[in-house]
């Protein structure tokens, strides 16, 4: 009888009937959820039983020595690398392991690469235009027109990343720091729910670093941001919550102070430097 009631309950939406592009479900808190993830490359365990939870709107820093698996972790989340075992969920609805890279991008996960990659032959404006969250299929792209609201949105982001003066210059002439900001701007155009930022301040000057810190902290709350970074000073200046990775799994988690006083962490970091 109860089963009959369940089946005839008109308010119930069956899982398989829910639309594929349904919004990310964050009612349970986490926007990103990795559980028992394992990856090995030719026998080398790059990721080893990794468990990680990112809450909606959080700004999380991930640190760790070289080879700790930071970039591999990013690759898994964005669908570039498939783990051997484990599960990766975006919100509580989307299983990322079943999705392709473009699908994951259109679900709302944006990624900034370690090395700034912008389209050097295109102008700063065009770089942002391509990143805009629109229909990315072939024919809509061919017939796409530049609507005033798109232009406004691009100008808004240009303002945010401080590249308004360079709007119509080819991105190839930008300085290293400017390219990094442009790339963050491209991520913002996608209106992502989750931003993955890989070493944003590598090779930046002091002032550029400060600007980047401002930019990233202003994003948190609206978006969830995960920053992978080597530079401890920079991490200290933006981090609320820090995760330390070591040999493919989480070594410690907490505020910057908690983490930097953790004996295990000190051992790993000092051991590396010694």
């Amino acid at each position, binding site marked *: 009888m109860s089963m009959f009631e369940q089946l005839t309950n008109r308010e119930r939406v069956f899982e398989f009937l829910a639309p594929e592009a349904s919004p990310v479900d964050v009612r349970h808190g986490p926007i990103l959820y990795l559980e028992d993830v394992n990856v090995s490359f030719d026998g080398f365990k790059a990721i080893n039983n990794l468990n990680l939870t990112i809450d909606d709107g959080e700004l999380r820093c991930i640190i760790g020595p070289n080879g700790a698996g930071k970039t591999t972790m990013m690759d898994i989340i964005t669908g570039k690398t498939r783990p051997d075992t484990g599960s990766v969920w975006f919100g509580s609805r989307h299983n990322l392991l079943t999705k392709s890279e473009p699908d994951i*991008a259109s679900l709302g996960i944006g990624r900034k690469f370690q090395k700034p*990659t*912008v389209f050097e032959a*295109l102008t700063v404006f065009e770089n942002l235009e391509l990143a805009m969250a629109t229909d990315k299929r072939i024919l809509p792209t*061919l*017939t*796409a027109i530049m609507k005033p609201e798109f232009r406004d949105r691009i100008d808004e982001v240009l303002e945010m990343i401080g590249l308004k003066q360079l709007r119509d210059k080819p991105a190839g002439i930008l300085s290293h720091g400017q390219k990094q900001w442009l790339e963050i701007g491209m991520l913002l155009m996608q209106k992502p729910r989750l931003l993955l930022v890989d070493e944003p301040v590598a090779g930046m000057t002091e002032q550029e670093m400060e600007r980047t810190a401002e930019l990233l902290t202003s994003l948190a709350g609206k978006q969830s941001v995960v920053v992978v970074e080597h530079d401890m000073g920079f991490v200290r200046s933006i981090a609320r919550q820090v995760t330390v990775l070591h040999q493919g799994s989480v070594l410690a988690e907490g505020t910057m102070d908690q983490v930097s006083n953790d004996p295990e962490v000190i051992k790993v970091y000092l051991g590396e430097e010694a």
Partner: protein
Amino acid sequence: MPTSQTWLLRPLQERSTQIFLGVLFAAVALVTLLHLIMPEGHALHVSAYTVTLLGKYLCYALLAVAVDLVWGYLGILSLGHGAFFAIGGYAMGMYLMRQIGDRGVYGDPVLPDFMVFLNWDSLPWYWQGFDMAWFAFIMVLLAPGLLALVFGFLAFRSRVTGVYLSIITQALTFALMLAFFRNEMGFGGNNGLTDFRDILGFNLRTDSTRLGLFIATGIALAIGYVICRGIVTSKLGRVSVACRDAEARTRFLGYRVERVQLFVFVVSAMLAGVAGALYVPQVGIINPSEFSPLFSIEVVVWVALGGRATLYGAVIGAILVNYAKTVFTGVMPDAWLFALGGLFVLVTVFLPKGIAGLLQKRQKPDEDSNADPSKPKPQEATA
């Protein structure tokens, strides 16, 4: 910045396209007038032979535009575009063969001469329908398009790019050449298809038909150019450039790179097919040598000489190189390949952006200084 909303009309508002179309139409009109008005023997008279020769150059120019679309804007160096050109040519050739009817040497009302010669008693299934012009003209687009679709689908899905893709395209055209050499394929073996008589009821051997074909080729080149320009000035064109320069990044932005590549590749193959179809009635023959890898490589050289990622550069390159070839092979045929090779080396060293780069430098020296010559910057793609 042009503001037209339709991708196909946008290039018409653009200055470079207007100049290109103006020059093209003026040249076609001038040749037509000089051919018709000037009496034969006059110094300014353009002979029917020259008209057909120029028509051939325009076919090559359309092929070069097709190659530039995939190479210049998408970064796919196709060394097998001759295959699409030849297949379009064969589709047209099959139509022209069926038009011969019972005027062939053996006088068979249906079977082309070579089939009678091989003792075939009926028309193979793939020759059906080619007696109808509309069917043949659709096949001119469809056959190369379909080959490009299947080939591109397999290659791009497996993320084959760069040198590997170039080698595979080269293998594709070589394999097709070997296949078409076989008599059992039913395409006339190494003799190919020839001895054509009529096209759409007009006698191919009259001067007026030749002039008509020349004008038709000029129009086809104009349309092909506008289509390509429409694509490269659209957002899809900018996505193509993005795929060319940073494929992984484009994928993370949410574009399906393999579909962008497939779409542009298929459009390019169809344009190459049209070029081949217009070429065949003008030269009067199509045989497997059009599939030869050397020809496809030559096309790439035209584009490189003219200037990559400009489209009009491809047209200039194709016409100039083929004019040089006509002159050279007349004067000293053995030296032609050395001359072509030398020209290629000289242009690569001194004019990395080809002849088009020379034109641009004259126009706007300030903007050119910061462009990286190794990566072609898509001019006017900002529109």
